[in-house]
Structures are given as C-alpha cells and as structure tokens.
C-alpha cells in the first residue's frame, strides 16, 4: 500500500521533473552557446612600401582587391577587383592569385600557385608594393628593440624635465606610425572605439570599450575590458587582472600599436 503511494508520487513528480530538467538543460546550453564570445586577433600586416602604412589582416582568409567588398581594399589602378587571397593555413601564411589581370609577385617573382609568405617578404599586387609582416615574428623583434628605445627616451627626457614655463608632462599613448599622441587626461581612462571613451581610438580592430588605463598609487596600469582582439603589453596578452605600465612599453590594442610615454610634453592650458 505504502509502496503504491510512493510509486504514484514518483510518477507525478517525474512529469514535472522531466519538463523542468529539459528546460534546465536546454536553458544552460543555450546560455553558453549564445553568450559565447569570439576573439580573433590580427595575424599579420601588409606594410605599404612608400608610406609605411600598416594594413592589418584581421581574418584567417583575407580577400585583397579594388572591390569594396574585399577585406583589404587597395585603390591602386593596376589592382584587379578581386586580386588575391592571403590565408592562414596549417603551415603558415599563404598568398594566392585569384585570376588577377596584373598578377601577384612575391620577392619580385610572379606566382602561379599559392605561395608561402614569410616575415619581411615583398609582395606586389600589380604595381602596388607591400611588405608582409608576420605579427608572431614581429613581436619578438619589437621586444628586443624595446630596451634600446627606452634608454634613448630616458636620455632625451632628462633635460626638459624642469623649468619650462607653459609646459607640463602628462602620460600619453603614442602612435608612432601615424605620429599621433593620445594624452591620458584622467586617472581612470577607458580606451576604445566608442565615442564615450576617454581615449577614443578609431582603429578597426579596437573594441568599443577595449581596455582601461588607470593610476594606482604612483604607477600606471592597464586592464583588458573583455575586448574581442585582446590587449598586449610588450607582446604579451593581458588576460586577467592588470599589468603595470612602464615608460616606453609597447601597448597593442587588438593590433593597434602604441608606445606608452609617461612624461609626454604638452602645452599648459
């Protein structure tokens, strides 16, 4: 008799349990599937031979051509509308000519089948000349150069330290390629592409709220705000927590490269 009652209760309870568990399983799977965030990073650059302008390659497969639907849009007249594809494969970066009229040249030789690219290779699309930069290799070189630059900077800074009327020293992010400086005007600055940010960086690979640069005690720190492409200090990702910034550090916001200058000279207002 008692067994029957327990059985009935179990049957009744299992009806609701089944539905509840189904909702729970589907709900939690959906939660993680839909809140999943995807990060892609800049794998490499094309550097324009004359202007030294950096064009980031943000995908594993990048179409290059004159058409506005390409990932990398080249405006040179000799470039075909869909000229070439640079893709990341198991073996590394590969460039392929996609039936262009004027051809693709790697280190001066025209290619007829996909060719492996190495750091520093000269790539031409028609008459448009570029240098290929592999970030992984590039990062190492930068690190070596860091020390040198830092010392030079410290040396340059000393004489102008005091006694200058109408001048003050502020921490700043310097984009050396574009010769542009972003002064860090507050002690807790949000860096990102959104106009609400304290420091607005209009770079394609920078997230809308990318990172935070802030002063803690006497030192400056950077912290990633969950950006898509990540923040690096001296070629190392800032994954969790904050990272101390020192004068001359190389900061990368998803591939946009800056030098941190703690004592940038600005005119007093």
């Amino acid at each position, binding site marked *: 008799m008692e067994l029957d009652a327990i059985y009935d209760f179990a049957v009744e309870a299992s*009806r609701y349990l089944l539905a509840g568990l189904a909702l729970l399983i589907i709900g939690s799977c959906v939660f993680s599937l839909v809140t999943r965030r995807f990060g892609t990073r800049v794998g490499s650059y094309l550097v324009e031979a004359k202007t030294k302008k950096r064009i980031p390659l943000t995908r594993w497969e990048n179409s290059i051509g004159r058409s506005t639907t390409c990932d990398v849009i080249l405006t040179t007249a000799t470039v075909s509308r869909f000229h070439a594809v640079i893709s990341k494969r*198991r073996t590394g970066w590969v460039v392929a000519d996609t039936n262009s009229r004027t051809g693709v040249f790697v280190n001066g030789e025209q290619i007829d089948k996909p060719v492996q690219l190495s750091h520093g290779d000269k790539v031409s699309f028609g008459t448009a000349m570029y240098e290929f930069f592999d970030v992984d290799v590039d990062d190492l070189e930068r690190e070596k150069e860091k020390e040198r630059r830092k010392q030079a900077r410290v040396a340059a800074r000393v004489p102008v330290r005091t006694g200058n009327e109408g001048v003050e020293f502020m921490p700043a992010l310097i984009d050396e390629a574009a010769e542009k400086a972003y002064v860090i005007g507050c002690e807790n600055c949000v860096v990102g592409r959104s106009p609400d940010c304290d420091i607005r960086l209009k770079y394609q690979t920078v997230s809308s709220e990318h990172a935070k640069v802030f002063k803690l005690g006497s030192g400056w720190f950077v912290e990633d705000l969950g950006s898509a492409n990540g923040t690096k200090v001296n070629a190392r990702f800032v994954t969790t927590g904050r990272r101390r910034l020192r004068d001359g550090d190389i900061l990368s916001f998803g591939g946009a490269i800056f030098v941190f200058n703690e004592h940038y000279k600005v005119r007093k207002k």
Partner: protein
Amino acid sequence: MAEKNEKKQKPKKPKKPKHPFNWLSMLLFATMFQLISMMPVIFLSEEINIEVVGVFGGFILTEWLYFVCARWFAKQRATELEIIAFTLSGIGLVTVASVYPNYALKQFIAILIGLAAFIVLLAIMRNVEVISALRIPVAVAAVGLLCVNLVMAETINGALNWISLGSFSIQPSELVKVAFIFVGAATLEKLQSTHSLTRYLIFSLGCVGALFLMRDFGTALIFFATFLVIAFMRSGDIKTIGLISVAAVLGAGLIIYFKPYVASRFEAYRHVWEYANDGGFQQTRVLSYSASGGFFGLGIGEGRLRHIFASTTDLIFGVICEEWGLVVGFCVILCFAFVAVYALRLARHARSTVYSIAAVASAALLLVQLSLNVFGITDLLPLTGVTLPFISRGGTSMICSWALFAFIKSADIKTYPILEKQMEDK
C-alpha cells in the same frame, strides 16, 4: 562630475556573464533527465526487458565516456552541442524503445555510428587542405550512391529511397545530405577564383533530380532549400538565385499540372478535420493527442498516438508532446533554433569560408527539415513525410544529424585546441 563617475563605474561590470553550471553538472542533469525518462519504459512493461535495460545502460555509459574523453584527453572546452545532441538522441531512443522494444538496439547502434561519424568528420574538417582534396571524390561518391539507389531501390512507404543491406536498410539520401554540404563548402580562394555557380549547380540538379525520380519530395525540398542557402553564401548573387527559384516554382507547377495525383496528396492541407479519416488522418491524430498531453504529458507509455502508423518516425513529435508534454516538445524544437543562432555566430567568426558555409548550410538544413516535419504533421505546412533530426527512428537519419552537428562544431576554433593555441598568448 557625477556623470563622469558613472562612466568610470560602467566598465567595472564583468562583461562576460559567468555560467551557472559547469560541464559536469550539465552532464549530470542530462543523465538525470535520461534516467527519469527510462524508468517508466523499464518498469511499465510486464517483465523487465534485459535488452532494453542494456541499451539504456550502454547509452549512458557512452555518453559519459565521450564527455570524459573529450574533456580530459581531447581538451574540449565547449561541449554544449554534444549535450544537446545526446539529450535529443536519448529522447528518441527512449521513445523508440517504449514503442518498439525490438528496435532499441538498432537505434543505439545508429547513435554509436552517428557519434563515430561526428568524431571522424571533426578530424577531417580540421584542415582546409584535407577538405579541398576530398571534395571531388565525395561528390562523385554521392552521385554514384544516388544512381545505385535508383537502380536497386526498394519502395518503402511510397518512396523509393532505401537500399537493403542484410538486416539493415540504409537511406542514401540522408548520407548525400552530408556530402551535399561538404561539396558545397569552399575556401575564399576558391570562391574568388571561380565566380560561377555552374559546377555546383549541376551537382545539385543531379541530386534533386534523383530524389524526384525516387518520389522523395520532402527530401528534394530540403536539398533545394539547402542549395539556395549554399548558393547564396558562395556567390551572394541574388539575381541568379531568384531565377533558379522561379524556375523551380514553375517546374513544380508543371508537375502538378501534368500529374494531378501529386497535388491530390496535399488536398487535405489546412482542411485536415474535414479529411479526418483519410488525407488528414495523421495530422488530426497528432493535433488531438498533442493537445491532450498538456504541458507535462500523460506519462511515457500512456499515450495513444504510439499506435498510429509512423508514430516513431514522422509523427514522433506528436508522441513526445502527448507523453512527455508540450514543454519538452517545444524545448526539443526550440533548441534547434538556438543551435542555428550559435552556428550563425560561429560562421561570422570562422577561420575559413569553408566553415562559414558548412555551419550555415547545416543549420539551415536542420531547420528546414524540422519545419517540414513538425509543421507538416501539425498542418501548418503540407505533410511531406521527413524525419525529425536525432529523434526519429532510423539509422541513416541519425548519422546525418550527428554529421551536420559536426559541421557546426568544426566552425568553432575551440574544437581544435592546437589551432586555438596559435591565437593565444605564447
């Protein structure tokens, strides 16, 4: 000033919400769900069927084995898709075992083969070079398989889409679905050097044509819809695709004009209650019994839809609604929609257009097939007789479902920890 402070506060909020459950607790929930659903099947029959108990045990063991291996040895960090696949397969297995205990073992074997296909496809899909190399052989094999099917077809339930192999019969059209997407996916390099759709169009026409000859209109429709999605993904050429669609509608019109019996198959559509004992027989039963179940169902084994023909294949959604309840029924169909959302997001961030196209086409195929099944038996669409992915009885359909999930999962970089490492900090 206050405004400025507010701005400072904002970024402090954690951007990524922390998931309330880890994979192990999710796996535990899934197992609990399966155990609860298996209990009535085991104990309600007059004597305990050892084979069914063994199959259920084997299923849960397989599930745990897979997840432990995937997590600890293959370093998988995103296994939600498999949780969904196992949960759905489990619902199907329990339903099939409760209606036809003799089919339980076959269904379990089908799940095992499906899982194997899933793992193998994931390995193949790791490198674009392998996919490119396999494309032509797969296309040839698919067309060949359909031709063999046409020659030595066996008519089951009015469609000529079965091949018998000993005690098993396979449905080549299900396997060709996988091949169809595999062949359709292409790298950006390939897309950019060959702008025309011609070769793929010919391949697709061959497949759809063969299915038409087999009178498997439901599957032909699924293929056609998938073809449109793949063609759009590849070319973005709305004009051509519009033209093809118009041609297809005209063709369908011609068929109906010359072969009126095709249209007569659909005469009960939207009038099923007037044809409750002939053309609308299945739909009216599905509607009536599904509504009888309410939110929480009448209990597994307590339904009556199970006695209707095709209750474990085409009509299985109705059986689930009646016995497991509308909540479970709607969870089942909605989770495909969420998988599709996931596939869409993956496709946006995939590492090659191959994966974008494969993920989107797989999700589209699953949704179209699901719609034809669920909306067909509930009279929102004409009844065409296709299966419910993962759940319906049938081995080839199960393998195809797992393979399609493999296409979606392969678009996720987290599936391949080695590749993912390249993107991380060294």
